[in-house]
């Protein structure tokens, strides 16, 4: 269908073709813009918006204020500027969300592809997946924190240590669904004609997987990834809530949302802003995922 065009146009690289297709996707571009804005908000924002460091007594005088020019997102029960906290929190939440999601997706896809493609590995890998699904999450996290928190914190400092531990903990406890889904897809793909063809001409499993299987599991993986970011951000707040996360003076969106809950009736903005930030992140990641999936699909690309 695209043969004639391809003959005329200069041969474009794969990357350029994907980008061209991606740009056509309105939702994806919207998502990209929003996500970029969010990243700018949390990375550049704190440099531009430095609230004055007040003494406790003075800060308490301006507690629980609604949004105003001085405090665009209001203040909390201790008179802390919510905008500054939102920015600091976003940096952590976005980093945790994406890194943990990537760990989970990488592990999930890896296990799923191996299990689906190699019959010998299927049994053992899937039983391993069952086991991880069956493990009670909170004791597992408690054990991990007990064993590793102090050791990592001594090398990397309490904040970086907590970050590594949290993304790792979330990552290794949330790859199972991705693995199951990917395996299911691979089982079906393996029997497709083009895969059979490729195998019959003696292509190595590595090549078949990278070339034919992986590009075709992108779509379910994208869905899992979108869900993964949201889940990681929320799980982080649960961890902080249990005292397993970051030090308590280290805000994250999930924690701001949780803290704001008590005040929801009196000061709804305390939950609206962090809730909105998490939703926007998830929404934009989802649209980017949609766009990427279309762009990576050779049948849609160039249509």
């Amino acid at each position, binding site marked *: 269908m695209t043969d004639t065009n391809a003959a005329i146009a200069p041969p474009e690289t794969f990357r350029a073709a994907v980008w061209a297709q991606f740009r056509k996707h309105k939702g994806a571009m919207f998502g990209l813009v929003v996500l970029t804005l969010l990243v700018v908000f949390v990375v550049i924002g704190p440099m531009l918006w430095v609230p004055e460091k007040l003494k406790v*007594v003075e800060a308490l005088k301006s507690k629980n204020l609604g949004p105003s020019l001085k405090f665009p997102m209001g203040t909390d*029960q201790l008179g802390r500027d919510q905008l500054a906290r939102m920015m600091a929190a976003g940096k952590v939440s976005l980093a945790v969300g994406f890194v943990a999601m990537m760990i989970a997706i990488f592990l999930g896809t890896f296990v799923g592809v191996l299990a689906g493609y190699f019959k010998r590995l299927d049994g053992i890998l899937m039983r391993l997946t069952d086991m991880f699904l069956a493990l009670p999450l909170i004791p597992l996290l408690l054990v991990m924190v007990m064993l590793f928190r102090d050791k990592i914190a001594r090398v990397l400092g309490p904040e970086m240590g907590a970050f590594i531990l949290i993304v790792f903990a979330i990552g290794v406890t949330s790859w199972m669904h991705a693995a199951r889904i990917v395996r299911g897809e691979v089982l079906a793909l393996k029997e497709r004609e083009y895969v059979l063809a490729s195998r019959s001409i003696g292509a190595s499993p590595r090549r078949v997987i990278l070339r034919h299987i992986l590009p075709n599991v992108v779509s379910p993986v994208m869905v899992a990834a979108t869900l993964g970011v949201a889940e990681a951000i929320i799980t982080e707040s649960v961890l902080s*809530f249990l*005292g397993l996360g970051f*030090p308590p003076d280290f805000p994250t969106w999930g924690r701001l949302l949780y803290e704001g809950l*008590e005040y929801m009736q009196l000061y709804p903005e305390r939950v609206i802003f962090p809730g909105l930030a998490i939703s926007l992140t998830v929404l934009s990641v989802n649209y980017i995922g949609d766009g990427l999936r279309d762009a990576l699909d050779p049948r849609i690309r160039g249509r």
Partner: protein
Amino acid sequence: MKLRTALMGAVASLAFAPAAFAERGADGHVSVLYWQAPSILNPYLSSGTKDVETASLILEGLAGFNEKGEVIARLAEDVPTVENGGITADLTQITWKLKPGLLWSDGSPVTSADAKFTYEYCTHPEGGCAQAARYEGISSIETPDDLTIVINFAAPKPNPYTAFVGGTSPILQAAQFANCLGAAASSCSDQNFMPIGTGPFMVTDFKVNDVVELVANPNYRDPAKPAFATMTIKGGGDAGAAARAVLETGEFDYAWNTQINPEQQAQMSAAGKGVLLNGFGTLVERIEMNMTDPSPDLAEGERSTTKHPHPFLSDIRVRKALSMAIDRQILVDIGYGSAGRPTCNLVPAPEMFASDNTDCLTQDIEGAKALLEEAGWTDTDGDGVRDKDGMKLRVLYQTSTNPVRQDFQAVIKDWWAEIGVETELKNIDASVYFGGDAGSPDTFQKFYADVEMYANNFDGTDPEPYLAQYLCNKIPGPDNQWQGENINRFCDPAYDALVDELSKTADMAKRGEIAKKLNDMLTKDSYVVVALVDRGRLSAASNTLGGVVLNTWDTELWNAQDWFRLK
């Protein structure tokens, strides 16, 4: 303000109480919310407040405490004292007399043998009785007749109101629990879930950690009580949801322990369906100073042990400065509102034991700075953190996970920053922090931090066992699996001697004097324990529920037999 007027309303309604009911069961149903639901109704197998308080509707002791902390008779005819001859002059024997004609809810008579059996039940070596401390020091119990119980103590007992007094040591029915002694205690779940008692209510249905259904006890000793025919105790959710169910939606008549922030207190009370009740007991939120070195560079087994004194907190001036930098009134306003008040005492009540120590109530940042200067801590490199001999004044401050505690941490960190002390905050899940697992580094007993914050109180009205926690031989360490109660690793021979003296003193005025002195030794003389807030109980009652009197010395449901429906 609102709370006070509401309280006065409750008091006023009490005055009408006698006229409002006259017949057992006339007022129908009452629903109570314990957001931490009871898991067992035998207080000898669980010391959790939720379990003890719910069980107190069914099981009673010989005596209890009223809202002023005074001992009142329940199953006993009256309260024995030295004056009325119930207690021997040498304080080694107390004689209780049961009210005649008492019946268990199954109709059988209550006798002194039941009390003796209860003592044997709780002191059985394999039973793991949670209230064993209530029976400590008893050498024997005699039952000369069906109504007389004579308790002999091994040594003079200045406070004999422990066994069979209060919700934590009620009398069990010997006939029901006869086969539940020792190791068999655990297999008696029918008995533990549906004990036969003498209290105003009896259980009809019990679902673990969920719901208890009760009906009025047909054999209750006052034929006109209780006014309610049935009662439900429901569990689940959190303190905020519980307060909401009474104050805003009006689904429940009473909610226990509705510890919510001051803003929510005001907002929910404004809904007008109920009132918040508060009362003060002995619960004190405090910062504990670690007198030993918690440095992770030390070998495991030496960290936070008496082998290494703390590098700077062993200097009283540093401890005092940290205390001076704190404004306790602000903490109360942030976290507790009407359910808290600033205090400098470890023992804030009862009045006769409470020291008049109020030095710490005014914050003194400048004074704190001067004190640190005097101790040789100066900011030589200008980074805002004081240092001395190459060591920075940096503390690790840990506590359990709880929104109020995290707010306190944030504010106190700021104050300490003002006087040039850098603070690293850490919060730990309560089930780990208070779990006491010797394998975990994060328990409050291990104290792998410089300072830590939590709340503690004592059972009943006598602070002696509480103050005895700070003896030198109660320091936690690897040799006792970190099970000591002297969390600060405080050790002062003069203190130990004074505690010994207290244990031998019977005269109440003298006891009060010694207790105050001990309190001061730990607080204003040494700043080892930095008391912050005297925390009250906060519970919510519906406007239609009458007769509620909040009692912090015994169980909150101590007078449920007097509750009635306001019409």
